[in-house]
């Protein structure tokens, strides 16, 4: 099939249908609303169900209901809406139900703004709600990758019985670029789904043994960390400096890294595709004599830098400095990244860690 120009949110919504999503509940919020607008009529065509919920909170709890019946369920939101969903995300993980939550990230605290950004990195990678859990976090850098990866999002969520958070910058949902959509898969119900006959003996909350569960939980998360790290890297074996950046910001950074290479700077690039589990393994390949690791981020204070500093400490022998370049919101311009890189190379920027 030829690629055609599609809006990110629309392409993602149609891909969801093709990957077998048959339930959506949520509440509109810019810049994610087109996903639910599209599914409001599209799910009906394929025998699925759609509910415009009275709140984000209610929406995610409807997703819990559908997921508990073994159906591929989806909700999407942004900023404050994702905050409201956190009790549901925690519950899904606690009940070992699978679902995908799309966060089209917008900038700011509280009500925030509508600008595209990466301000939710720490929240998404640390679980977000109460308790002691992690979500698998995927961060696409193009609409095509988003569309391709949504199937993986469900496969991983179901394999490990966790929530996969699909974390994209708001701009990815609003922009258009050429996309090829996936084929339709056959829909299925997960074996643990309710059927009214108590076929799957789910353990009630009062019969659970938290100490025993903790061991299983640790094993599960360790297996995810071991098996599911995903990233792309380029030019890191001989690099003096390595950029680490994800999503659309990572895409712009890749452009900057390649231009800098052409201009004679030995720079490499790591693009995390899973933000959790963080791709620690990528760091093993970095030139042991690297002079610094640099994050490029679309937030105010630097969030990715914390994982990058930890990964650097784990992988590198020397006390390699790590630097954060936070460009607040939008997609950082290649020109700005290059200029700021030169400042780092000239020793004009203080390391973060």
């Amino acid at each position: 099939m030829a690629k055609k120009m599609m809006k990110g949110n629309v392409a993602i919504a149609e891909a969801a249908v093709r990957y077998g999503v048959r339930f959506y509940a949520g509440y509109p919020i810019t810049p994610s609303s087109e996903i639910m607008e599209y599914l409001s009529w599209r799910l009906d065509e394929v025998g699925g169900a759609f509910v415009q919920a009275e709140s984000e909170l209610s929406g995610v709890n409807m997703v819990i209901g559908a997921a508990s019946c073994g159906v591929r369920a989806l909700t999407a939101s942004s900023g404050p809406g994702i905050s409201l969903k956190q009790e549901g995300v925690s519950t899904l993980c606690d009940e070992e139900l699978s679902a995908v939550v799309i966060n089209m990230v917008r900038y700011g605290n509280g009500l925030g703004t509508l600008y595209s950004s990466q301000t939710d990195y720490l929240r998404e990678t640390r679980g977000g709600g109460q308790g002691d859990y992690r979500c698998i976090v995927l961060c696409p850098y193009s609409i095509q990758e988003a569309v391709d990866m949504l199937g993986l999002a469900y496969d991983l969520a179901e394999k490990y019985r966790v929530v996969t958070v699909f974390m994209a910058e708001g701009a990815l949902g609003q922009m258009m670029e050429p996309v090829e959509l996936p084929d339709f898969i056959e829909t299925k119900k997960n074996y643990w789904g309710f059927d009214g006959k108590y076929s799957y003996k789910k353990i009630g909350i009062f019969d659970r043994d938290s100490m025993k569960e903790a061991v299983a939980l640790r094993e599960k998360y360790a297996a995810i960390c071991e098996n599911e790290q995903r990233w792309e890297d380029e030019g890191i074996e001989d690099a003096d400096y390595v950029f680490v950046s994800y999503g659309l910001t990572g895409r712009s950074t890749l452009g900057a890294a390649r231009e800098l290479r052409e201009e004679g700077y030995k720079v490499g690039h790591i693009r995390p595709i899973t933000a959790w589990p963080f791709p620690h393994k990528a760091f093993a390949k970095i030139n042991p004599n690297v002079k610094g690791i640099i994050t490029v981020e679309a937030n105010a204070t630097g969030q990715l830098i914390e994982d990058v500093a930890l990964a650097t400490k784990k992988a590198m022998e020397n006390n390699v400095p790590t630097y954060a370049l936070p460009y607040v919101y939008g997609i950082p311009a290649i020109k700005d990244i290059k200029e700021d890189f030169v400042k780092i190379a000239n020793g004009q920027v203080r390391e973060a860690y």
Partner: protein
Amino acid sequence: MAVERKVPAIIDKPMNFCPGCGHGIIIRLIGECLTELGQDQNVIYAIGVGCSSNLGGGLEADRLHCCHGRAAAVATGMKRVNKENIVLTYQGDGDAYCIGIAESLNAAYRNENITVITINNTNFGMTGGQMSVTTMEGQKTSTSKLGRNCDVTGFPMKFPEMVASQFNVAYAARGSVDKPQNIIKLKAYIKNAIEAQMNGEGYSIVEVLSPCPINWGMTPSQSMEHIRDVVMPYFPIGVLKERGEKA
């Protein structure tokens, strides 16, 4: 015709309710109705948070413990994808009417084809007897030590009346477990509610006035008298919306 009365198979396990509590009677009635309607192997419970949570430990049926107040939303998700199953919520007044008022009202507003059973014992039982939206005027609770002052806390909320009068729901009733005659009536209400769902008529709710002797500081028999003398005059029992009245 003689009917053999045995404990419904799906609730054949002990539960941890206080002596004199009404939950056990209601749970039994729901189990009997499901069995008699041939739905006991076709049911999913969405269970609230509070004393109602104790139901989960005693059930041999599909059930999910919902986040506090969200049972009607969870049940909505269940019913929309498993249309052939009977989906019931089992909640207390605190769960359904306080923290979950948005989810409860909106499920009724959409006329969601689910059955909501709420246990109204005029206080938060599980957390130690705090004031609820159903707490009677002047009732002493651990957060209304001098008795509920309705001028600043609002008057006891009549949720079934709200949805019966304002929304296009299929069925609404209030029953009580204070005496055998009322228990028999209550069973008919519950059966009607489940039948409404089976027929795809839409949202059905049965609120049940139930005693909380421990938090009320009464004996079980005093509690039943309290329901009759104090609670029921404000919260009248009976059918608030008959099946078939819906537009």
